[in-house]
C-alpha cells in the first residue's frame, strides 16, 4: 500500500518536473518595449503597431514580407516575415510578431493581426468637419 503512494508520488514529481522544464524552455515572453526586443537573442512576442508611413514590401523572389513596427514609445524596428501579407494586415489595429531580433531586423515566424472592428470605441478621432 505504501509502495503505491511512493510510486505515484514519484511519477507526479517527474511529470511536474518535466512540464516545468519544458515550460521554461518553450516559453515566449510578450514584449511591448522594442529596445528590450533588440537587446535579447531570445524568441519573443513583440507587440506594437505597423508604421503606415513606411508602407510594407512584398518581396516575391525571396518570398518575404517586411514592414516597420513601432512600440508604444515610438521605437521602430524592421520586421521580416517568411511568407506573404497576412489577412487583415492593412486594417490591423495592432500587430503581434513572434520571432527574434538579429542582424538588424526582427525575424518573424508568426504574425497575428488584431482587427480594429472590435475596438470601435476609439476608432474615430474627434476632428469635426
Amino acid at each position, binding site marked *: 500500500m505504501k509502495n503505491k503512494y511512493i510510486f505515484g508520488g514519484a511519477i507526479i514529481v517527474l511529470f511536474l518536473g518535466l512540464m516545468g522544464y519544458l515550460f521554461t524552455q518553450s516559453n515566449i515572453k510578450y514584449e511591448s518595449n522594442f529596445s528590450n526586443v533588440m537587446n535579447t537573442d531570445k524568441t519573443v512576442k513583440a507587440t506594437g503597431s505597423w508604421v503606415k508611413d513606411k508602407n510594407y514590401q512584398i518581396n516575391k523572389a525571396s518570398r518575404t514580407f517586411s514592414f516597420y513596427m513601432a512600440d508604444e514609445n515610438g521605437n521602430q524596428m524592421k520586421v521580416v516575415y517568411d511568407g506573404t501579407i497576412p*489577412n487583415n494586415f*492593412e486594417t490591423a489595429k495592432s500587430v503581434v510578431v513572434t520571432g527574434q531580433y538579429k542582424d538588424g531586423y526582427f525575424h518573424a515566424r508568426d504574425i497575428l493581426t488584431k482587427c480594429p472592428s472590435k475596438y*470601435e470605441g476609439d476608432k*474615430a478621432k474627434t476632428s469635426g468637419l
Partner: protein
Amino acid sequence: MAGSIVLSVALAFSLIAMTMYFLSYRGYKNTLNYGRIAYHSMAVLVIVAATILWYVLLTHQYQYHYVYSYSQNSLKTGFLIASFWGGQEGSFMLWLLLTSIVGIFLQSYTSKRGDLELRVMTVFTLATTFLLIMVSPLFKNPFAYIWTEPIFIPVKSITAGFLNLPWMQSFVFSDGSSGQSFIKMSTELYAKLSAAGISVNQFIADGKGLNPQLLNFWMQIHPPILFTGFSMSTVPFSFAVAAMMKNDYKDWVRQSFPWVLAGAGILGLGIMLGGYWAYEMLGWGGYWAWDPVENSSLIPWLVGVASVHTLLVQRKTQGKGGIGKYAKTNLILCIMTYILVLYSTFLTRSGVLGDASVHSFVDPGMLVYLFLVIFIGTFLVLGFGMLIYRWKSLNEAVASDENILSRDLALFTAAIVLTASAIIVFVGTSAPLIGQSQDKTFYNQLNLPIAIIIGLLNGLSLLLKWKQTNGQDLLRKSIPSLTISFLFTLSLIIFGGMREIMYILLAFSASFTIVVNVDIAIKIIRGNMKMLGAYVAHIGISLFILGVIGSNAYSQETDMDLIKNQPKEAFGYKLTFTGYHPVENNTKYAFNIQVEKGEKKYTVSPVMYISDFNNGLMREPAILNLMTKDIYVSPLGYDDQSQDQAAEGLDVKLNVGQKTNVEGARIEYTEFVKPDMSVMMSGGDFKMGTNLTVTKDGKTYNVEPILKKTGRDFIYVPVEIAEANIKIQLKKIDPSSQTADFIVGKIKGETATSKTPKEVLTVAASIKPFISLVWSGILIMVAGFFVAVSRRLRESLIKSS
C-alpha cells in the same frame, strides 16, 4: 425593450425555482410544484427572449446595438440566424438558451428518479441564475439600445437623406488617417432624432456585419454544438453536488453516467468542427494551433473523458455493496469539468488573453471581469466546499484487492493520463495570465508521450480482467494483437518512410488499440450490440491519432508561382492556373487551378476578395479530397503585372506648395483637389487628387492626377504630357495632411520595352496524407459515445439494491 423585460422576468423565475427546489430539499411540502412551474416558466421565457433576438436580427432592427454590430442587410438568412452568436452578448444568450433547454430534459429525467430532482435542480438553477444575470442589462445584454453608449457609425451606414439636417453637422466626425466620416450616436443624438420624429431604425440603414472569417458554413453549426457541450457539463456538476447534499455516493454514478457520456460526445464533436472550420477557412493548412480559445474547450473535454473512465470503475466496484472505488476522484472530476468550462469562458471573454489569441475578443470591462470571477468562485467554493465538508464520509474503506494487472487500475491510470494532458494544456493556456506564452512545441512534446501511453494502456486494459489477471495469461492473449500492430508499423517504416522514433511508437500504440478493439468489437457484434460503445470510441480516437501522424508529420508544402496556362509539377501532380472568374454576385474571385495526375483531372478554385468589412484582402483555400490524402491549395497573391507597367518610374513625395526636379522637369504641387465631402460621406463615387504645374523646356503644363472611386474600385488615373514625354500617376494620397506620393516616368521608352503582361497566381500547395482519418476518427469516436449513452441510459433507470 421587450427582450430585456422578458430576460429580467426569467431571472426572477430562475431565483424562485432555485428557492423552491431548495426548500423542497430541506423538507418543505408543497414547494416542489412551484419550483417546477418556475423552472418551466423561466425556460419558456428564455426561449421567447431568444426568439425576440432572432426576430430583431432578421428584421434588421439596428436600434439594437447588437444587431448593428453583428449583422447587415446583405447577410443571407442562414448567417443572419447565426449572427445570433456573432458577439459576446449573443454567445452568452446561446449558452443560456441551450442550458435552459438541457434543464427541461434534466428535470424530466430526474423527476423519474426518486428525490434526485430536488437536489439536482437546486444546483442547476443556480447556474441558470448566473447566466441570466450575465445577459441582464447590468452586463452583456443583447437587447441594449445603440445610443446608450456613444458609438461611431460610418456615414455610409446612415440613411442618406438625414445627413442634410442642419443640426446633424455637430454629430459628424472624421478620422484623419482613413479619411472616413462617422456619426457619433449618443443619447444627445437620440434626443434630437426623437424630437424630429425620426426613429433610430430609420436613421441607421445598415449594420456592420459579421467578420468575413465568420461567414463560413460552419458558423451556423459549430457554436451551437460547442455550447450544447458546455451546457451539458452543468449536469455532472449538479449530480456531484446533489450526491454530496444527500451524502449518498452510490446512485449518482449510474444516474449521471449517460449525461457525462453525451456531454463528452457533443463537446468532442463541437471541438472537431471548430478544427475543421479552421482547416477549411484559415488557409494555413492545419486544424489545431493550440490557440488559447481552442485549448480552453479541450481542457474540460479531457477532464470529462477522464471522469468517464473512473465513473465506470466506481460503478463496477459497487457490485459488492459500498460506494465503490474512486468516489472522491469522480466527484472532483465532475466538479472540475464544469469549473473548467467556466474558466474557459473567463479566459476567452474577460480580455485577459489580449494579444495571445487569434480570436481577438474585446475587453468587456472591469464589471464583467469581476462577475466572471464571482461566477467561477461561487461554483468552485460550492463544489470543493461540499467536498471538504463530506470528505470524512467519503473515506469508506474499499477492499484493497488491487493488483497491478487489473482493469480497474488500468482505467484509473487512463484517467490520470488524460488529466495530465489536461494539466499540460491548462498550464500552457493560462501562461498569458502571467505575461508568458507557450510555443506549440510545449504541447506537442508533452502530449506525444501521453498519446503513446493512452494507446498502449487502452489496448492492454481491454485484455485485462476486472479484478486481476495472470501475467502469463495476459502475455498469451496480447501476442496476436501485438504481432499485427508490429507488422503494420513495420510496413509504415519500410513503405511509408517513417523514421522518427516517437511517431513510430505512436503509430504502434494506436494500431495496437485498433487491433484489440476491432477484435473485441467483432465478438460483440455477434452478441450484444449495445456493448459496442467503448470499443467504437477507442477505434475512433486511434484512427484519429493515425490521421494526425499522417497529416502532420508527412505533409509536404511548397510555395509556387503559377503562370497562366503554364503547368507546374508538385508532389507528382501537374498544376495549371487557367484563369479566374467572379463568384457570389461579383463579390469574390475564384481562381481555377487544374490538378492532373495521369488520366485523372480535377479543378480546385481557391478564392480571394477584398472584404467590405475591413477593406482587407481575404483568402480562402481550396481543398481537393482524394480519399487517402487532401491536396490543399491556399492562395497567396495574384498579379497580372498591369500595375507594374503603369507604375514604372521614380517615386516622388510632395506636400502642397513643394516642388521637385524629376526627369528633366520641374513639378510643383500647387493645390489639393478636394473630394466632394457630402458624396464621399454617403459612400458614393468621388475623386480627389492634386493640381500640378509641370515645367519642361520652358513650357508650363497644368495637370491633375487623381484618385477616382467608382463603385467598389479605387483607380489612380494617370496623366500624360506627350510633348514633354512625361507621365505622372498618384500612388498614395492622404486627405488630412494632403501629402501625395507620385510615380513620375517617361511615356516613350517605356512602351518600347513593355513586357507582355503575364498573369501569375501565387499559391501555397500542400499535401496532407490521411487527413480524412482525423475527421472520421472523431466522428466514429462520437458515435461510440452515443452507443454507450443508449446502454447507460437503460441502466440508469434500474433501481440499485
